[in-house]
């Protein structure tokens, strides 16, 4: 979605004639309950001319797909070992199942606690953060969910619309 009606809110140097309400009103068209169900929200800023002129050196789909497949295999074998064969991805795991596979250490718990209080995370949001953190750990090939994973998962949920 665009950040506002003209789509330029947050672009450096852009001043909206309609004022700040324009952005708020536009974004309010998507309801809170709907947004609460989104696991990952990410800002996609405009690409600068410098980036466009730089030689294209980004990763190809095949490389990314390899990591994705590896992460999915980890998830599948984990859920099968727990007897939840019907569940293939972290996002599909139920609350009990996800709590049994994500055991945040003390550091991560502190971080989660503070974030939950500061940003008033809903119960659903809490579980969704855990699920994304689990996926991040799987992508990194790490057995336990670490603080950095929880922090990245939280960053996908809060601070949205800052662009």
């Amino acid at each position, binding site marked *: *979605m*665009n*950040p506002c009606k003209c*789509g*330029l*809110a*947050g*672009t450096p140097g852009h001043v909206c004639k309609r004022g700040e309400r324009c952005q708020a009103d536009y974004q309010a*068209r*998507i*309801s809170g309950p*709907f*947004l609460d*169900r*989104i*696991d*990952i*929200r*990410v*800002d*996609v*800023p*405009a*690409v*600068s001319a410098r*980036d*466009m002129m*730089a030689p*294209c050196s*980004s*990763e*190809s*789909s095949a490389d*990314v*797909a390899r*990591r*994705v*497949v590896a*992460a*999915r295999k980890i*998830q599948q074998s984990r859920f099968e070992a727990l007897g939840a064969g019907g569940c*293939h*991805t*972290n*996002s*599909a795991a139920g609350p009990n199942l996800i709590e049994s596979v994500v055991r945040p250490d003390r550091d991560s718990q502190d971080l989660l606690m503070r974030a939950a209080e500061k940003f008033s995370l809903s119960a659903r949001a809490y579980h969704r953060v855990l*699920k*994304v953190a*689990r*996926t*991040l750990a*799987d*992508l990194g090939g790490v057995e336990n969910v670490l603080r950095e994973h929880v922090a990245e998962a939280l960053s*996908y949920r809060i601070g*949205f*619309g800052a*662009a």
Partner: protein
Amino acid sequence: MVTIVNTVAFRGIEAVPVEVQVQIASGMPAFTIVGLPDKAVAESRERVRSALVASGLGLPPKRITINLAPADLPKEGSHYDLPIALGLMAAIGAVPSDAVDGHLVLGELGLNGRLAPVAGTLPAAIAAHGSGRGIICPELNGPEAAWASDEIDIIAADNLLALVNHMAGHQLCSRPQPRKGADAKDLPDLSEVRGQQVARRALEVAAAGGHNLLMVGPPGSGKSMLAARLPSILPPLNARELLDVSMIQSIAGELAGGRLSDKRPWPRLWEVVSRSVQARSAWRTMAYYFSMNCRSSTRRSWTVCVNPLKAERPGLPGPTAGCDIRRGSSLSPQ
């Protein structure tokens, strides 16, 4: 005496068995179809009559009654032409009455007796295989039906006359072979996207864990471009997902040439109205497919997806209802 031909009706992607019962009795000449036919089924009378004439047969001047049982299930679509025609031909003795017994029949007839392809052959073939029957379908739907099983008996004919000749043993319709569609090689590649490291990472995470993703940014920043590259980083469809997706494509009439592909379906999002459908897991793939794939086939796919849900959730919007997200990029990869 009543002649019975087996066919199917579709409830979502589920094929419900339907019997076409044909009775030819003495009385005032008439041709009636009962059993909740919609307009397309009711009009099949004219197509069947002409197709029979084109094949060198005429309807007897008697009272012809066709019943589509169960009578309380609405019958939609043009695929009842062929079972009705075969039922009539069996009733007047033009084909042996036991020729169609072990088969499920579907196909649309042209006035010249040509068999036109119909939607829903794949679910019908799977239902036929499940009940130990073969399937009789138009030639163009043959490859699609062949995906149901290696063992299923398929008669895929180009026209009514060829079908009759096949049944009489004068001419053989060869068994169609399943065809594979385009593979994932020709998908747009992520290397075409410049910059956007954060969004690329988010896309990868979404693909890895099956998470949903909302991208927010000014026009032209690459949201749609990134979204269109999601299928290229997702693992190919597994057998179960492939079946689900193909059955929806089959019912929506979008399975070109009966080619199944393990490529994940992808729409042109900028022309799409996104809808949020809270669906039970069995329908999730369909809802996903719909939300991803609703341009020209919108109405039909939507109807296919939502009709079975409506009974449970009366509040679901119809095919023309308004959208929640304008120019949205809300993805839910499964």
